[in-house]
């Protein structure tokens, strides 16, 4: 069984960041999932000691800087989402894939709603229902990743 070290977490976060800042255009902008958040949630469920609310908050700050949005906006949303993930982490790792997927979907929606509230406070406009498309694409991606990781998890248990 391989141990998770912090470097691996940071490396995957950086890769997720590169995915996040890919030059999306057109409809891709509406559907592209929040890669960094997905990677964060993955590590929060797998290694809550190494990756927790603080890591989420810092990654949120990096996203704020990279995307040019209001400083601290994504940081707050990520911290809140990470909090909900950490609180139920012990139960979550015992869930089946479907239950886990449903819970992660809820977390993605929480993140999106938190961002929406902050943007509306900052004087943004109501974006409409398309705003929640990243949750759906995100959960599809999560499902693929969770499937593969649960598979390896089962194997390691057998070992």
């Amino acid at each position: 069984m391989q141990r998770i070290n912090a470097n691996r977490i940071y490396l995957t976060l950086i890769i997720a960041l590169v995915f996040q800042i890919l030059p999306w255009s057109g409809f891709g902008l509406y559907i592209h999932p929040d890669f960094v958040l997905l990677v964060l949630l993955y590590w929060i469920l797998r290694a809550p000691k190494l990756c927790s609310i603080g890591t989420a908050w810092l990654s949120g700050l990096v996203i704020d800087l990279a995307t040019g949005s209001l400083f601290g906006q994504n940081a707050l949303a990520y911290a809140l989402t990470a909090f909900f993930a950490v609180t139920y982490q012990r139960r979550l790792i015992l869930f089946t894939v479907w239950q886990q997927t449903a819970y992660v979907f809820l977390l993605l929606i929480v993140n999106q709603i938190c961002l929406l509230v902050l943007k509306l406070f900052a004087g943004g406009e109501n974006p409409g229902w398309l705003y929640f498309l990243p949750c759906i694409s995100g959960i599809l991606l999560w499902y693929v990743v969770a499937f593969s990781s649960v598979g390896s998890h089962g194997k390691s248990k057998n070992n």
Partner: protein
Amino acid sequence: MDQHESPSFFIQGPSPFSRLVLFAALSISLMATDSRLHYLNEIRQGFIVLLHPFQLIANIPSNAFRSASEYFISQKTLRNENSFLKEQALYQNSELQKLGALKEENDNLRKLLGTAKSSSQPVKLAEIMYMGRDPFTHRIIINLGSRDGVEAGQAVIDSMGVIGQITRTYPFSSEVTLLTDKDLAIPIQIERNSLRAIAFGHGRDNTIDLPYLPGNVDIRKGDKLVTSGIDGIYPTGLAVAEVVDIQSNPNSPFAHIVCNPIAGIENHRQVLVIGFDKRNVDLENNIESNLKAESTPLKSNSKRNSPPKSHATH
């Protein structure tokens, strides 16, 4: 997976909730600092420089795709395009000859009248790197930054008309707020009768609004809006938009006028950044201080029924 080996039943360190409270407080204070006090611009600029290599990596796939598709372009398309461009150059050259004579004449007339010469503003060619991250704000990122002399407040145009205004500069890139963004205002003039007004982006469906005009205003469908040039940012006479719909509501003293931008706001890769007119340095400082102050959001302006003085608030 290591926590399965040694599950810790007790939470170590501060509880998740107290951590959340701490980080939430931190981010709220950061948001307040960023939106009201503008202390964090330097940090943002420095970080963007650090992020630049990652951005270049992220741009590789799309650049490779584009160059590949350019490589496999057929000879016929190239030939067609070439002949079209030659034809266009011919027409434009003949127009240009007339323009030179007219300019000379205009300068002479201005000299006779004793007014200042209309100065030309320097222009730089920039390329759009990518659309803004947030599909619900209308921003694009171009490849010229403060190192190339681009400053916040400068106008950005394409071959057909105005696209928007630079709202934030980084060393290697800058952010352009498009005309259709809710937070961008542009002083315009109706080409037909030189009526001056200020146009605002509508935000949602790529249109531009003309608020603050009375219900009986002399505007018709199909009227062309051009820049008035009184702000010293946009040169005079650039095409901005075309009126597509006018509704006058008896309950409101103002007409509801909807316009479509003329420039291909989402079609081009190359745009031109127009530098400031040297005579208008004072004005530029004014705008910059407005940009920095940013304390009057457009909402309060629209309640006041008077056009705001700043041309860009973001």
